[in-house]
């Protein structure tokens, strides 16, 4: 839940943020939203892929500025309302400018999925509980090989507006030693298409 029920994130020009405006927003504005945002409902994420954009400029050089994230339920027979965690993955996309569309890369007839994760409401008894109002995207899951550096990633995700279940703000950290965490980038997610995993 939001810490301040009256908080409505607005741009300096007084308008609500849309996807592009969030992508271009200052870090301090994004941090405010991270702190005040709503905890996403796992049921709103499952079965969908979201277009993603890292705000850190260097991710352009690394070819990961634009991406997609998908969410699914490993055990679809379970009631989503009772699920404690869901699963997800990243999809590589062609690095086009921000205003251009998202095009998923293709290998052998399928999109290129990597960086698998578990996603669950932040647990206060775990190290990664910096934003209790968020869900944690935890890459330390068995679907990533032990040598895969993505296992070190920990993302927090919040819903930006209560009346918009399609727009999310995330913050990515790298897990260093023990409880040490290194901030990497904010990222913005917006609902794009259904996940092939349903």
């Amino acid at each position, binding site marked *: 839940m939001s810490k301040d029920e009256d908080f409505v994130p607005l741009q300096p020009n007084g308008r609500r943020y849309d996807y592009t405006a969030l992508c271009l927003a200052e870090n301090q504005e994004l941090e405010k939203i991270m702190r005040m945002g709503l905890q996403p409902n796992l049921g709103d994420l499952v079965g969908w892929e979201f277009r993603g954009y890292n705000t850190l400029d260097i991710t352009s050089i690394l070819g990961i500025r634009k991406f997609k994230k998908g969410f699914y339920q490993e055990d679809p027979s379970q009631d989503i309302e009772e699920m404690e965690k869901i699963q997800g993955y990243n999809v*590589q996309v*062609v*690095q086009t400018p921000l205003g251009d*569309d998202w*095009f*998923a*890369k*293709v*290998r*052998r*007839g*399928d*999109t*290129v999925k990597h960086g698998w994760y578990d996603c669950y409401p932040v647990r206060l008894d775990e190290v990664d509980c910096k934003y209790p109002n968020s869900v944690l995207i935890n890459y330390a899951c068995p679907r990533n090989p032990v040598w895969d550096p993505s296992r070190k990633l920990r993302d927090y995700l919040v819903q930006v507006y209560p009346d918009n279940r399609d727009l999310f703000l995330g913050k990515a950290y790298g897990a260093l030693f023990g409880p040490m965490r290194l901030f990497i980038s904010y990222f913005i997610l917006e609902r794009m298409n259904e996940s092939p995993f349903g």
Partner: protein
Amino acid sequence: MDKPLCLVTGACGFMGTHMVEVLHGAGYDIRATDLSAAYDSDDKAKGRFPSVLKRLGVEFVPADLTDPGSLDAVVDGVSYVFHVAAVFNYSAPWSILEAVNINGTRSLLERLRYQKAFKKLVFWGAGGIYDLSSPLPITEESPVAPANDYLRSKWEAEKLVKDFCEDHKMAYSMVRGTTVYGPRGVYGGGQMLMAAATMPVAASPSNWNFRIPFGHVRDVCGAALYLAERPATDGEDYIINDNSQLTNIEFFRFVAELTGHIYVNLPPVPIRPLKAVLLPLAKAMQWATQNITHTQSPLEADTVDYLGLDVVYSNEKLKGTGYELLYPDARHGIAETIAWYGRNGWI
């Protein structure tokens, strides 16, 4: 109330199968026709995919456009006719092109003339019939100058349809696709996409910024149905092309990025001398594949002719009818099509 019966000619081919799927999706009753042999089994080399018709449970009546008598059973009771069937091959001799593309169309028209249920014919023309050196963008009014026998046959057939239908008060519209691509595309646009997607290193000279026109097969077929249903479009011809104006460089770079291959920007390469080298080579390959291996030549003189041509088509007339493109940006269709090729083991 039952929807009118639609006839699709060339129904086992790339365009034909998509036309059948579009009609099926719209809930029409469909009669599909093609050569009897085309219905046996899928044959990628020949661009035949009867499994699509079989999967949809569509009525199939075999016929041969060069055998007018075989068309009687095909046209019986049809309302809308989507005349897709044609020999689409830059290496085909004129005698075959004339027999199928022109005379076959005449035979079909003569039989449709007496069909009481007949409402409208949509004829598959070709976007390439225009003088491609005309001022851009090319519109339906641009001068026509077919550059090869295939295009000449399509233009002659168009004129035949226009004259015949006007003489006999039969409704018709023409669709002229440009570089048509999409799943199951083997030739033309499909050939180009598969080649680009399988290049381990894609490269393009930095001066090759000429634009390539694209139109997704679903838009060609979707527009054909849209036009069939609208009497206001009777007697009109429509270029079917998307909004994107990808340059050669943008196309190869996009496909390389999409498929994870390396893209290299080469130093400028003058096109005219290159064409002078490629043209005799293409002709030699065409001769050898026609007379010795009896296969499709991977390089054809008419394809070489297109090299370096900056081509932009207007789609304003089509959009003016209210038709909304399913694939206004070719990149979405290209990505989907390459994924389809991969899933089906074509690349």
